[in-house]
């Protein structure tokens, strides 16, 4: 933080954009520790941008204007109808001027440059790029890359036919060409390919900027070469470059902005975690101040290794009274929701649906639900972190939920599992049952121990009024977690103080296979001793409860997935055939 940063101020009243008079003290929100004063909240007035607006950047705005001008030009050409001759005076003059300087060596160079726009080279570059994006698991980049190409390819084939502009008159064409000339599909394709590679593979920074400048140079040279060879008019090349570059830039700016989907290599490259420095870091500070009334002093990543579905962080703040303390923040982005949805769909296809397991429709719903579940569970007396609410970073794209920081808490795998921990862990399940709730993701990473008591975190996948099966699975998983790190016999004995033998028998009749979280299965395997079998030998015998394996939904999903794969294959084959590669 710089000295000029208004958020360095410890008093909310001195923060830029905040009221210049002291804001009235507001009562703490529900769940917030009563001694925390969170006045100074500020409503974002209509017309003011969010903390982290969708970024178009200068180049995005430039290309919006560029594409609009192209659209006007193409509409003008289309409406006039006599475009073959009417607007071509300037183009013809330029073409004649270029043709007048033709010499053998320049023709060789121009033809070599024109080769850059060949289908063969373009498709090779695209397939290599697609393979690279798959290798680096940049699915979002891949979809945007392919989608932009489909659009540009479609425009490159449809627009020329609609406009029907022949190749330049008055000159002899001495280079290769395909189809009508306006817009230049060849220039558009190469421009898009090179820019797409830049967006897909180069991290923000100097090399990316250099790549884009180099692309500009290549495209200008290609355009000049094609005018020289008499295959494109000046306006064909300009409009082609504008379409290819503009569509690719805007596609990435809108659907795959660098701040949300950064290109990174090494360990960061495959992580779902977002960068919380730079513009996003500043946005987090502003959002917490304006929406929660807390002044952020410091933000640090926290527990990244244990979190794949969000970006967790430790945030040092002061409240209005100047009290300094830490809170825990989890940044959710739309990518996390999509990853969760894809995971659940894949799991439903492979194993069958676990009842009532539905993906969230949006990141807003996810974060709203987690905040709600924290409040409901806390009201029910469950040991969960108190929530301060959540803040909007970018509407419908990024939200940050802020909770009490469980200072000094350890993951249960690092803590001593004594009777106190066992009782408090089982009490969590008892309280959930009594309140008609289920956590649905009871695993070692989600159980923290502080002051000899278990706390449960990550409640986003919780459920109100769950099925009996789901509640039974929660109990079994909690007992398995406690049994893996403690003594299974002691866990069983203590469980019978809070649950009936039938409850425990039902739990172990229900838990099997995919109902046990992956991390818990791995821990059981690593620790050996077959904790599950030990529990089953202790509980009263009961027939296993079947997991629903096949349903209409699973069959539909399987068929839909097969159809999508088939469609993708057809697109691939069609693309290859179109280029004569197969």
């Amino acid at each position: 933080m710089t000295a000029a940063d208004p958020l360095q101020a410890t008093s909310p009243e001195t923060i830029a954009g905040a009221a210049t008079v002291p804001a009235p003290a507001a009562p703490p929100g529900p769940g917030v520790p009563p001694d925390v004063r969170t006045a100074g909240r500020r409503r974002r007035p209509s017309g003011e941008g969010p903390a982290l607006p969708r970024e178009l950047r200068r180049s995005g705005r430039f290309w919006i204007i560029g594409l609009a001008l192209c659209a006007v030009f193409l509409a003008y050409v289309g409406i006039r109808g006599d475009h073959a001759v009417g607007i071509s005076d300037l183009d013809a003059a330029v073409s004649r001027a270029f043709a007048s300087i033709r010499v053998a060596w320049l023709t060789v160079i121009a033809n070599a440059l024109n080769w850059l726009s060949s289908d063969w080279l373009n498709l090779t570059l695209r397939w290599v790029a697609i393979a690279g994006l798959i290798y680096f698991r940049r699915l979002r980049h891949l979809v945007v890359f392919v989608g932009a190409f489909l659009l540009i390819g479609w425009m490159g084939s449809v627009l020329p036919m609609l406009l029907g502009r022949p190749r330049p008159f008055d000159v002899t064409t001495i280079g290769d060409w395909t189809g009508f000339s306006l817009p230049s599909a060849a220039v558009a394709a190469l421009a898009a390919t090179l820019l797409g590679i830049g967006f897909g593979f180069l991290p923000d920074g100097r090399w990316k900027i250099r790549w884009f400048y180099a692309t500009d140079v290549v495209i200008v040279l290609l355009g000049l070469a094609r005018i020289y060879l008499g295959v494109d008019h000046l306006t064909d090349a300009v409009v082609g470059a504008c379409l290819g570059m503009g569509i690719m830039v805007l596609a990435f700016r809108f659907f795959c902005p660098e701040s949300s989907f950064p290109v990174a290599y090494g360990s960061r490259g495959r992580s779902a975690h977002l960068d919380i420095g730079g513009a996003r870091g500043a946005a987090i500070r502003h959002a917490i101040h304006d929406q929660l009334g807390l002044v952020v002093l410091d933000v640090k990543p926290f527990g990244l290794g244990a979190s794949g579905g969000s970006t967790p962080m430790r945030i040092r703040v002061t409240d209005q009274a100047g009290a300094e303390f830490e809170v825990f923040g989890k940044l959710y982005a739309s990518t996390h929701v999509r990853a969760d949805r894809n995971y659940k769909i894949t799991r439903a296809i492979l194993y069958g649906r676990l009842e009532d397991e539905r993906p969230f429709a949006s990141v807003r719903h996810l974060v709203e639900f987690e905040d709600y579940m924290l409040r409901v569970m806390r009201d029910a007396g469950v040991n969960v972190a108190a929530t301060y609410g959540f803040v909007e970073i970018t509407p419908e794209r990024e939200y940050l939920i802020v909770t009490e920081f469980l200072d000094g808490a350890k993951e249960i795998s690092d803590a001593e599992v004594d009777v106190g921990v066992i009782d408090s862990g089982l009490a969590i399940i008892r309280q959930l049952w009594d309140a008609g709730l289920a956590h649905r993701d009871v695993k070692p990473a989600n159980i923290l121990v502080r002051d000899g008591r278990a706390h449960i975190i990550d409640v986003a996948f919780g459920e109100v009024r769950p099925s009996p099966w789901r509640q039974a699975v929660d109990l079994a998983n909690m007992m398995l977690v406690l049994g893996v790190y403690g003594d299974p016999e002691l866990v069983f004995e203590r469980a019978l103080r809070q649950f009936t033998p039938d409850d425990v028998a039902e739990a172990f009749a229900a838990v099997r296979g995919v109902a046990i979280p992956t991390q818990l299965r791995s821990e059981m395997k690593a620790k050996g001793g077959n904790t599950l079998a030990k529990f089953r030998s202790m509980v009263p015998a009961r027939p296993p409860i079947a997991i629903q394996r096949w349903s209409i939904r699973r069959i539909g999903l399987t068929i839909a997935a097969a159809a999508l794969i088939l469609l993708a294959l057809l697109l691939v084959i069609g693309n290859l055939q179109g280029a004569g590669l197969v």
Partner: protein
Amino acid sequence: MTLLTVVLAAALLSGCATAAAVRKVGVLCVPPAGRIETGVVLMAQAVPSARFVPCVDLYPAGWTLATFRVTRGEAVMSFDSDRGGAGALEVRFVQTCHPVGSSLPPDVLGAKGLHEFRVKSERLRQFDKEFGPTYQATRYYTFTGGCMIFDLRVTPGTESTLTTDAAIMVNLVPRASLAAQVAAAGFRL
């Protein structure tokens, strides 16, 4: 709607729009007053040596232009027929070709339209064969600096009518005529 859905929907819909765009390509032998049939001009630019250029006299009932692909040195038009099927007729226009098969007698049904140009009719050839469930016939029309190849693939039993249709539909326009149209606009073809 997710980005993926948008992309897939766009990919599927784009095929319809492309088909509609092809039908807008101007390939008529006689252009509307004051206009240039740019599709024919583009084909003339593809094979600058040819003294004649393919064009469409009129579309018999049930025929539509399906694809139009022109590159330097070659132009290909394909036509759909409601009776003959998709791509029933493909017309390829190149500088040179190597006709095979027997010569087509001048009085053969379907050759009449092209005879009017008297384009070296002695080299008009036909190569017919039965190929599976499809009737296939290839005809070569050669003339100075160019060659037009008809490839008819239709449902057996319809070949007689559709061959006549094809010959009525596709004709040749002299390059000089196109050059005059372009010159009237102040340019040189």
